[in-house]
């Protein structure tokens, strides 16, 4: 009894004995190799294959249904070995054909490759394979690995990795490459005979090879499932977050520890000029985030279920399309909105001129939105932007102190805004409302300024400039830090000023005694 292999040659099915199959396969591979660089090589190959099919067909009848080794040898001798009938001209190298004419063996494929030498292995053939590659005694490599085992323990890991990544020789051609011998018909026949004579040796080690495959395969399977599960969980959480962010209000803890529900669309509503821009921006962000998340989800599902995805290509293209669409949306909304910020204008309002006082006292008034809610020692920028009744409240007016050019105190407010044009910018700056109260030498500032929601957020700012004349004093009330150079980094200094009196000497404010 002999094992047969079913092959398709030129569209015809042949049952071919295993040993005959090996020879035929190597023959065709050799031929393919020879023809690789020949012009019309594919066609020649197809023609020869067709002829082989024809010759096989002639050798089959009702009483003989299997191609044997003898048949294959006969057919090969009829057609001839590639090195016999391919003229030098048909080969790529057309130079002096001395070497080809001289040597019966073709040295066209002497590349040496590393394989696990499973025929001479102790565990997985890694060491003997490496030894084979470098042409050294396997004992040396094994000793080196043994030292690594005991020396650092990394040897085991290295061995397993090499076991997994170094292939085992699958064909006799591979075995020849492992030995660095040219893959030609003579050597292949030798090798085939050798393997045939020594089948027991291979069988013994079949077990260990399978073991390697199992360990590698199972490890990856289990690892893949864990990763896949994590991917599914992560992406589901991300999808829920994305949806609630986009379609609802989301909740977060404020510093005071109470839940506060904020609809993020309200905030973006004051950023985008038109509803179309806002929609494009949101749709863009939504698509750009959803696509990768969904891709991770699908990959996770595939890893866990190990199902082949028939529609991978369609889904891939759809995702690519949606992602691109999202990017385009964002670019449109982004450029539109950036244009809205392209021009800046500002104007000054001189609030007070105080000549009859030697000392002024400034502080920030209490209000219902900011002073009672915001912890000014540790605040979030988002807390300083609030929306109430068609007005945007911004909690960061800035205070700057300067030396006065004359003997009077001056209090000046500088309003600024950006806009699509200077005109729109100045219009928006004019719409800013800021409250200051004065009674005698006491000046109370509001902790916020506001502007109509329809103006949109265009980086409106209010800067209070207080000019102190030489030799006169200014006292900072306890709440001053609510507006003191809020956006500057060196708030330490500002906190120092609170509840203290300073005197202007020359151009500098000096702590008064």
């Amino acid at each position, binding site marked *: 009894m002999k094992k047969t292999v079913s092959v398709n040659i030129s569209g015809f099915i042949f049952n071919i004995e295993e040993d005959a199959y090996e020879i035929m396969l190597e023959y065709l591979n050799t031929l393919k190799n020879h023809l690789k660089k020949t012009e*019309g090589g594919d066609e020649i190959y197809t023609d020869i294959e067709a002829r082989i099919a024809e010759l096989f067909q002639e050798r089959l009848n009702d009483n003989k249904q299997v191609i044997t080794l003898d048949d294959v040898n006969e057919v090969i001798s009829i*057609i001839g070995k590639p090195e016999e009938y391919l003229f030098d001209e048909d080969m790529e190298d057309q130079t002096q054909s001395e070497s080809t004419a001289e040597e019966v063996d073709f040295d066209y494929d002497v590349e040496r490759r590393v394989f696990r030498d499973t025929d001479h292995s102790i565990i997985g053939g890694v060491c003997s394979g490496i030894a084979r590659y470098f042409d050294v005694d396997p004992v040396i490599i094994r000793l080196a690995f043994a030292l690594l085992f005991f020396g650092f323990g990394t040897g085991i890991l290295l061995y397993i990795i090499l076991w997994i990544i170094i292939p085992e020789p699958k064909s006799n051609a591979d075995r020849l490459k492992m030995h660095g011998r040219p893959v030609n018909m003579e050597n292949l026949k030798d090798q085939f005979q050798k393997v045939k004579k020594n089948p027991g040796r291979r069988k013994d080690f079949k077990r260990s090879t399978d073991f390697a495959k199992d360990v590698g395969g199972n490890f990856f399977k289990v690892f893949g499932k864990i990763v896949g599960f994590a991917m599914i969980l992560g992406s589901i959480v991300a999808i829920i977050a994305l949806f609630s962010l986009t379609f609802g209000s989301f909740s977060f803890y404020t510093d005071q520890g109470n839940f506060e529900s904020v609809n993020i669309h309200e905030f973006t509503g004051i950023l985008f000029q038109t509803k179309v821009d806002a929609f494009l921006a949101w749709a863009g962000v939504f698509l750009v985030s959803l696509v990768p998340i969904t891709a991770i989800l699908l990959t996770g599902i595939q890893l866990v279920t190990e199902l082949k995805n028939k529609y991978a290509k369609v889904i891939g293209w759809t995702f690519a399309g949606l992602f691109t669409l999202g990017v385009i949306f964002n670019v449109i909304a982004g450029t539109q909105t950036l244009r809205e910020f392209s021009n800046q204008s500002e104007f000054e309002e001189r609030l007070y001129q105080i000549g009859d006082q030697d000392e002024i006292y400034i502080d920030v008034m209490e209000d219902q939105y900011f002073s009672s809610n915001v912890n000014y020692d540790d605040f979030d920028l988002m807390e300083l932007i609030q929306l109430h009744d068609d007005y945007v409240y911004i909690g960061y007016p800035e205070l700057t102190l300067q030396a006065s050019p004359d003997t009077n105190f001056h209090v000046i407010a500088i309003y600024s805004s950006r806009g699509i044009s200077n005109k729109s910018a100045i219009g928006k700056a004019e719409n800013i409302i800021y409250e200051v109260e004065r009674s005698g030498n006491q000046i109370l500032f509001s902790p916020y300024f506001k502007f109509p929601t329809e103006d949109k957020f265009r980086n409106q700012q209010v800067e209070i400039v207080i000019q102190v004349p030489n030799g006169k004093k200014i006292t900072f009330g306890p709440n001053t830090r609510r507006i003191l150079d809020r956006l500057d980094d060196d708030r330490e200094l500002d906190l120092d000023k609170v509840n203290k009196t300073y005197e202007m000497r020359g151009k500098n404010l000096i702590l008064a005694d």
Partner: protein
Amino acid sequence: MKIENTKQQMRKGILEYCILTILSHNEAYPSEIISELKASKMIVVEGTLYPLLTRLKNAGILTYRWEESASGPPRKYYTLTEDGESFLAELESTWEELSSAVETTRRKRLNK
């Protein structure tokens, strides 16, 4: 200079001439061409023929049509193209010239 090389070159040129001659009378598929060439001991192994046919076809000298076969894959039936005809005519006159030249040369040597 290898004798093998020269023999191969000579053989190849003449082989092409023979193939064209076979096809000048009627179309044929490779197996037919092979059996004729084998009979005249022009080729030993069949593989020799396929690269030649492909090259001649690619050079526009031969063309082929497919025909179903009862005993295997469809066959390519080769014929000469018009270019092929004139190419063959040229080869024929060259061959006449060459063989008479060779004959003359050899006869002179033999007569000496």
